[in-house]
């Protein structure tokens, strides 16, 4: 489809509400902001920015990172890759450099999905292009930060990530706002292409503010023997966050795995799912969602669609209710249309069982210590298939959230 046709589709969808989550008034957010100048190193960023970035797994010192991308509001202030075979670029620049890239623009999903994808097409504000060339194996992750500094701003980014044939790529993406920012809108389109025998791990950590609205829209296409791992962590207040990332396993033995850890304090409304179309023989999927409410609302969705022989998939939704004010709604869905598919799910939502607390108290833990140990355990998931360095980053981020969040 030509760029003009896509624009036209986006224009037609500009008023189209999403099927899930409250409908947002896009006009309520400002589209204009001052440009930020480029920096030669992430260390040049203000200490306050560095601190916030660190809370979402972005290290300004670039310790154990093989590349970084940093966008502030509508300006890409830094992008660099340090290993041959890895590319980190502003998507706008990448589209100019690589003519073939436009074939991947709105290929995994389309601009007319809803008003948010439409807005990203009609009012684009950069985004990142991350790529591992064929056979390149990244030992350490690339990091990408999307940062908002202006109150009430809309930030619409469009990212493309490609793990070429036989490559291995790890990404940590952190999205956050400056400490004084209370409200804003973040729309993030992400298209992932995992080629034959490639492996892509994508870990996204969000740290928003009480009046920020967030609408990520992402989709992954996974080819033969490819592995796509997506981890999502959101433990800080957010007014409304709705996302339903989708993976298409289109090649034989393709694998897609989603993990999410969500905490909804009072005032937060989170609606996050994981959808996988298992379209090729032997493809695999796993989705594990862990949600805690301390007063906010969480909808945890999952949807597997098994359309090929020898498909295996498992889904787990766990919800922990720590306050009577909050609500967790788990909606796991399995859909099979051929004989030889094996898809299962388990879902459990509830408070901590009193007998578990009593049991730990009998070992000398106070009631608070027992509760904390159980909550910590609930959040502590070893994300399978992730390099140790990324698991460490996740643990670090969770520890920060636990302490700061008073859990």
């Amino acid at each position: 489809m030509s760029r003009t046709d896509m624009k036209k589709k986006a224009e037609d969808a500009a008023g189209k509400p999403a099927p899930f989550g409250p409908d947002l008034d896009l006009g309520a957010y400002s589209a204009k902001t001052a440009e930020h100048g480029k920096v030669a190193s992430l260390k040049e960023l203000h200490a306050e920015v560095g601190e916030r970035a660190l809370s979402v797994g972005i290290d300004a010192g670039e310790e154990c990172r093989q590349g970084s991308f940093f966008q502030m509001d509508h300006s890409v202030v830094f992008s660099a890759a340090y290993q041959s075979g890895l590319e980190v670029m502003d998507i706008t620049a990448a589209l100019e450099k690589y003519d073939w890239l436009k074939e991947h623009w709105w290929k995994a999903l389309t601009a007319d999905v809803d008003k948010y994808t439409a807005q990203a097409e009609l009012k684009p504000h950069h985004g990142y292009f991350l790529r591992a060339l064929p056979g390149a194996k990244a030992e350490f992750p690339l990091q990408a930060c999307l940062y908002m500094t202006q109150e009430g701003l809309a930030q619409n980014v469009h990212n493309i990530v490609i793990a070429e044939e036989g490559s291995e790529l790890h990404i940590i993406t952190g999205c956050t706002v400056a400490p004084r920012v209370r409200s804003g809108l973040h729309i993030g389109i992400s298209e992932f292409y995992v080629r034959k025998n490639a492996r892509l791990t994508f870990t996204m950590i969000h740290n928003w503010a009480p009046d920020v609205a967030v609408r990520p829209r992402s989709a992954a296409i996974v080819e033969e023997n490819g592995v796509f791992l997506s981890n999502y962590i959101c433990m800080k207040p957010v007014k409304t966050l709705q996302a339903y990332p989708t993976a298409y396993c289109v090649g034989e033995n393709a694998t897609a795995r989603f993990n999410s850890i969500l905490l909804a304090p009072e005032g937060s409304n989170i609606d996050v799912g994981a959808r996988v179309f298992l379209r090729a023989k032997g493809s695999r999927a796993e989705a594990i969602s862990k949600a805690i409410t301390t007063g906010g609302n969480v909808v945890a969705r999952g949807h597997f669609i098994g359309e090929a022989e020898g498909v295996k998939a498992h889904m787990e939704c766990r919800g922990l209710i720590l306050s009577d004010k909050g609500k967790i709604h788990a909606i796991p869905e399995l859909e099979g249309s051929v004989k030889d598919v094996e898809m299962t799910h388990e879902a459990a939502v509830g408070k901590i069982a009193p007998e578990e607390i009593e049991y730990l108290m009998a070992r000398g833990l106070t009631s608070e210590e027992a509760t904390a140990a159980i909550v910590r355990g609930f959040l502590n998931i070893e994300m399978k298939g992730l390099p140790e360095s990324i698991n460490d980053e996740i643990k670090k981020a969770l520890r920060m959230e636990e302490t700061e969040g008073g859990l």
Partner: protein
Amino acid sequence: MERLLDVRDLTVSVGEKRILRDVNLQIAKGETVVLFGPNGCGKTSLLKAIMGGLEYRVESGNIRFKGKDVTGLAIDERARLGIGMAYQRPPAVRGVKLGEILRFCLEKRRGNAEEELSGLARKLNLLDFLERDINLGFSGGEIKRSELLQLIGQSPAFIMLDEPDSGVDLVNIHLVGQAINELLEKDKAAAKRGTAGLIVTHSGYILDYVNADRAFVMLDGTVYCSGNPRDLLEDIRTKGYEGCVQCRGQI
């Protein structure tokens, strides 16, 4: 001998149901006492009431431990005073590792736990279980050993064991017996021991491995009679619990 536990006229309800009535039980330091009784007679309830389970509402009577009235204390306060319990059917606690709890117990006592931790786990054949969620998917025997391992970590002065012999195979029962003897300091003369034990068993199987000083029979929520453990067990075998109680009368 110094009295460690003193339960007087204890009547306890769970919800609307009275499950213990007028229980009297005294245990001295250095003693090992066995509690026999049919299923559902209140043995586990008595242990949980002594431990301080929230559901177990004391209607009358009291529990004194080391001379102090602990009737109104929370479970963790009782645990810190030195009351410990091995559960018959402990809940699985997802996300909390056996090693984490053992480390907690050991650190409370002596600061550094690391060296001791694996040594103790190895002894109870649980080295591979330290990183596992506590009781999740554990077999019957593994649960017994894990309970004892935690108690050894806690090192309580008063040790309650709820059916330590049920569902344990021949190989494991040795290990379980050894661990109990260690906990109860059976290598020392009774007068020199700092601990005491209360063992609930309905089969009496554990008595082949652990020597007990006295036994009680419990029936319908109360403790009836006391005597030599082997004699009592023999009476129960030949006359049944009711017969045994009738013959010996209420204490």
